[in-house]
């Protein structure tokens, strides 16, 4: 199968294909939890280079630590050991201060119920000290991009699940971070809404060219969105494989075209083949507990 080029070596160390300076470099990341005195290894030996402007999807069985890795990148959790370094953008942000490093789009409903759509999207800008008129102007721009113009002053309770996630995505893009971190943002949505939002995310992302790390449990979603798909093992989460899809599905992408192509099926089979044993191992552990 020559359409799929494997870029990871057997040791799990990801060898960059080009000589571009990586945006994020992770070396030997490890994370342990203590639950009622019992040590649980969430992540182990994560070595990874994330390229600037790349869309990286992380898939793996439940509880493999993919969300933990994302939260560590977001600075919401600390590693037990290891090193992560970023190639920071030296150009100033909106208020002259350094640009925001990252913004997270969470899986669950994370937009503030007490703020209108506009204020929610402007939240990150307010935190950066962007003056009121300016931040609302920027927010309005992103409200248009996610097609919520008629809901600018609506409260979250008046929105559907898909619209809420649109607000969440707009909030993350509006704060103009160097890296976007997404934790299964569409997992709670129905299949049809999901397809629509995937297409919108691709469109917005392709126009900004930001580096994205996207955690998902959906193989389908990984194929549609990713430049590279990182497959993780069952707990403790290690890198099992990295699959490059840039040659297979060039940009700009059409969700429908990808889903109906022959390469889609081949790619699905390839990812599932790598995941199958890990999911089975997870099931065995869950049953043993």
């Amino acid at each position, binding site marked *: 199968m020559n359409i799929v080029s494997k870029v990871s070596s057997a040791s799990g160390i990801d060898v960059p294909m080009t000589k571009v300076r990586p945006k994020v470099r992770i070396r030997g990341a490890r994370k342990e939890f203590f639950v009622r005195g019992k040590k649980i290894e969430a992540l182990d030996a994560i070595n990874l280079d994330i390229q600037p402007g790349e869309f990286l999807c992380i898939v793996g069985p439940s509880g493999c630590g993919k969300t933990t890795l994302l939260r560590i990148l*977001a*600075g*919401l959790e600390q590693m037990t050991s290891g090193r992560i370094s970023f190639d920071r953008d030296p150009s100033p942000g909106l208020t002259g201060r350094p640009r*925001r490093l*990252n*913004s*997270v789009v*969470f899986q*669950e*409903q*994370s937009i*503030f*119920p*007490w*703020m209108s759509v506009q204020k929610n999207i402007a*939240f*990150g800008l*307010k*935190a*950066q000290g962007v003056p009121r008129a300016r931040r609302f102007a920027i927010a309005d721009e992103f409200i248009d991009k996610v*097609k919520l*113009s*008629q*809901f600018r002053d609506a*409260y*979250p*309770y*008046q929105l*559907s699940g898909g*619209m809420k996630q649109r607000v969440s995505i707009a909030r993350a893009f509006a*704060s103009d971070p160097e890296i976007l971190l997404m934790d299964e943002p569409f997992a709670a949505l129905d299949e049809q809404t999901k397809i*629509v939002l995937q297409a*919108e995310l691709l469109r917005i992302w392709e126009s900004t060219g930001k580096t994205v790390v996207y955690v998902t449990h959906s193989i389908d979603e990984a194929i549609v969105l990713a430049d590279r798909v990182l497959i993780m093992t069952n707990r403790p989460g290690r890198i099992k494989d990295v699959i490059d899809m840039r040659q297979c599905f060039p940009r700009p992408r059409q969700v429908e075209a990808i889903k109906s192509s022959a390469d889609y099926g081949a790619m699905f089979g390839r990812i599932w083949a790598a995941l199958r044993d890990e999911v089975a191992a997870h099931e065995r552990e869950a049953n043993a507990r």
Partner: protein
Amino acid sequence: MTPMQNEIMPDEVLPNEVLPDADDLTPLENDAGAPLFSRHAVETFLSIVTPLILLSAWEGAARIGWIDTNFFPSPTGVMTTLWEMIRSGELWEHTSVSIVRILVGYAFGSLVGIFIGVLMGMSSLARAVLLPIVQATFPIPKLAILPLFILIFGLGESSKYAIIAVTVVYMTLINTYEGVRDISPIYLDVGHNYGASRTMMFFDVALPGAMPSVLAGLKISMGVSLLVIVAAEFVGAKSGIGFLIWNSWQVFAVEKMYVGLFMTAILGFATAWGFDLLEKIAIPWRKPVVRTSQKHLARSVVSSTQAKAPAP
């Protein structure tokens, strides 16, 4: 007729006349016509009529002499006394004194309570310092320390303000604290991820997040304030509604006592109504609760006024 003839083929739409009749099929069981009166109309009627019947029974019993009017004067007698007391200004004098006492103590107590409550919810340091003190002193009935307050602040207004303030501080503090602690951690994560300052975390996340609980605390403490002020005025005052009730009883002016009771009920109603209004203003982002009987109407109004989502 073969079974196939009765079925609508997926690819064609039949005009109504061609559709087979359903007369020979069993109708849905609860398909009874509309009732003569709607459930809602009956409920409204009963809620008005029941108190009227009770009041008439009381009035009748008093007139016939079945109950002792020395202790249970007739409703019309109480209303006459009420009218006289309104005209003489006596009622307003006592009522206004009590209202001012409540408002001063309440304003002070609630501001302090909300501030400390948010602080304790946000900062583990503040929690470590204050929580044991709050938990240890909260169960003491505040009325029980009224003698102490009178000793410290004297028989004047200060002791009334103080007892109301202390009552209100605890209720608002605990409700605010619980409200902040109940804010879903995801919102705090979002705040931290976007680099929100302490001020933003306080005013844009913690306070609005806890607002429903804060308002519940304010509402309860207003009710309890009424209770406490009446009791405090029983023993340590020469004016106020509590004094009016207690003194009328002492001098055997029973109808005046009932006027006092009536007035406390009115105040209770008025403040409860005021807080319902305040909730609508202070929490516009909360999904309105619609009662079953009004649901259908409300839904049709909403759907006709709300803008439709643009087709993605």
